[in-house]
């Protein structure tokens, strides 16, 4: 069973985010990056399926040079090969349809049974790229998946619904699944894995190779302004050494808020 995993690299979770000089995105100076959390779980699930059922795990990622670091991490964890959409034109693909179009073009000739994505990225959070990709490739899809059970020619998946409800759904393969964070326990790359990764293929795809021009990737959804959210409440910050701050807080909660 061959599985393609779409990976996105995003600023590290604990990054201190500032608005960039053009006020349209964050200031990317001094930011370090990592694999988007849900994508890391998607990769882990693909590796576990491969260990049970055989086949190949192919990772695909779009982005600048730095993205290779996350690709290498995926290869070190056990993915077999990688596709890197690496071209300045791809970096302008800033809405979900443009990203999905790029992935679809690069995956056109891949024979795979399943495609996994994370349910949404930690930066834009569109929660769409996987589904648009499915639509473009003509695949059935299921979102927010918590368990994957391959069957003969089909896959049975547990979908998370709202407020603690779940549902099993069966789809014919090939199919696209968006994977929920926490579906499994993530592994670390081993030294052996890191060494093995050095010999694995990372195929670079330019926009022209995928038959795409800058016009094809023009986003139809444009950020005009990025800014810090206005606070809906005025937070009273309590300062001082831990013991003093604790005493002040308890006093506030007892006599001002009267909740304890």
């Amino acid at each position: 069973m061959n599985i393609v995993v779409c990976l996105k690299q995003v600023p590290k979770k604990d990054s201190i985010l500032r608005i960039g000089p053009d006020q349209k995105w964050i200031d990317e100076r001094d930011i370090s990056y990592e694999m988007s959390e849900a994508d890391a779980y998607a990769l882990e699930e693909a590796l576990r399926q491969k260990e049970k059922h055989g086949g190949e795990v192919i990772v695909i990622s779009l982005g600048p040079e730095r993205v290779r670091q996350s690709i290498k991490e995926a290869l070190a964890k056990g993915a077999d090969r990688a596709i890197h959409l690496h071209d300045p034109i791809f970096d302008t693909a800033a809405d979900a349809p443009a990203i999905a179009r790029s992935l679809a073009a690069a995956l056109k000739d891949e024979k795979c049974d399943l495609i996994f994505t994370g349910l949404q990225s930690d930066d834009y959070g569109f929660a769409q790229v996987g589904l648009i990709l499915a639509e473009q490739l003509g695949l059935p899809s299921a979102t927010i998946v918590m368990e994957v059970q391959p069957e003969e020619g089909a896959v049975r998946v547990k979908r998370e619904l709202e407020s603690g409800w779940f549902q099993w759904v069966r789809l014919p393969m090939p199919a696209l699944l968006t994977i929920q964070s926490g579906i499994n326990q993530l592994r670390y790359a081993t030294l052996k894995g890191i060494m093995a990764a050095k010999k694995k293929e990372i195929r670079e795809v330019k926009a022209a190779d995928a038959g795409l021009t800058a016009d094809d990737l023009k986003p139809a959804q444009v950020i005009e302004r990025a800014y810090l959210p206005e606070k809906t409440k005025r937070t009273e910050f309590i300062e001082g050494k831990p013991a003093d701050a604790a005493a002040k807080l308890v006093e506030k909660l007892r006599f001002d808020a009267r909740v304890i």
Partner: protein
Amino acid sequence: MMSQGILLFIEQRDGVLNRTSYEAMVAAQGIASATGEKLSAVVLGKSIAGVASEVAAKKLEAVHTVEDDKLAEYTSDGYVAASKQVIENLAPRFVILSHTYQVRDFAPKLAAAFGKTFVTDCVGFRGEGDDVVFTRQIFQGKINTDVRVTGTPPIFASFQAGSYRADKVEAGETAAPVTPLEIDLSNVQIRTQAEEKFQEAKQAVDLSQAPLIVAVGRGIKSQENIEIVQKLAEAMGAEIAASRPICDNEWLPMDRQIGSSGQTVSPKLYLAVGISGAIQHVVGMKNAQTIVAINKDAEAPIFDIADYGIVGDLFEIVPALTAEITRVKSGE
């Protein structure tokens, strides 16, 4: 046909309307008054007359219904195909939805079928002339963006649960007409087979009734450290709860999870320890009467909704707080 009007998708299950549809309706009514476009709604399913007439009592021009055996149970294929025909038929300028798990499952495919972009999970909008600028959050609520859609209609947008208040829906003076739409799903192949919905482990703990909650998040770093938060909860007589990563790691059981995939609570006091305040968590606790946040990052979004905040090392502050509570209580 020229695209005009606003079409709101109403979500229902087994003839029961999803309340977030009314929240999205508040946004849609606002867009209608900002742009001068007329608002109508569509309900998909089977046996939906009750929902349709409930919706028709609100301030809108028309309610369309689409009934088909293939829509009795939700499937992505069925909803994409039916919605596509509805939109082709009515040619709206805006398509508005609430950002539910169901919408997340089919609407991106629907927009893609029209080759359109989809502005998901909006928390607001503003009118500019007859144009609309949407507000959506990136980096899990840490940053807001104003987003404009270029190109030809329809413009697809979904609104986040809780971004508008359902009780602000404007009622209509007279009931809007309810008209069935003829669509043909006979050639549509439903590729997925859905089984019965179920709830996992019976919710052993009902946190919705707890007056005091101490919740712990990723900042706690490891399972062994949960103990210091447990001690604080015990000292306060509070229930312990957690954000999703803690339960995913099984450091606390699933039934302690607060947020969109867990429980929704509104206690007197919600004390968030090492929780950054990702939107998926915040929707489950923002209605708490008093919110206290302890976090090392002064920019964490949890401070946007906190009444009291302590910026610092939770490993120092939490034990100090436990000691102080114990001291105060023993003095009483």
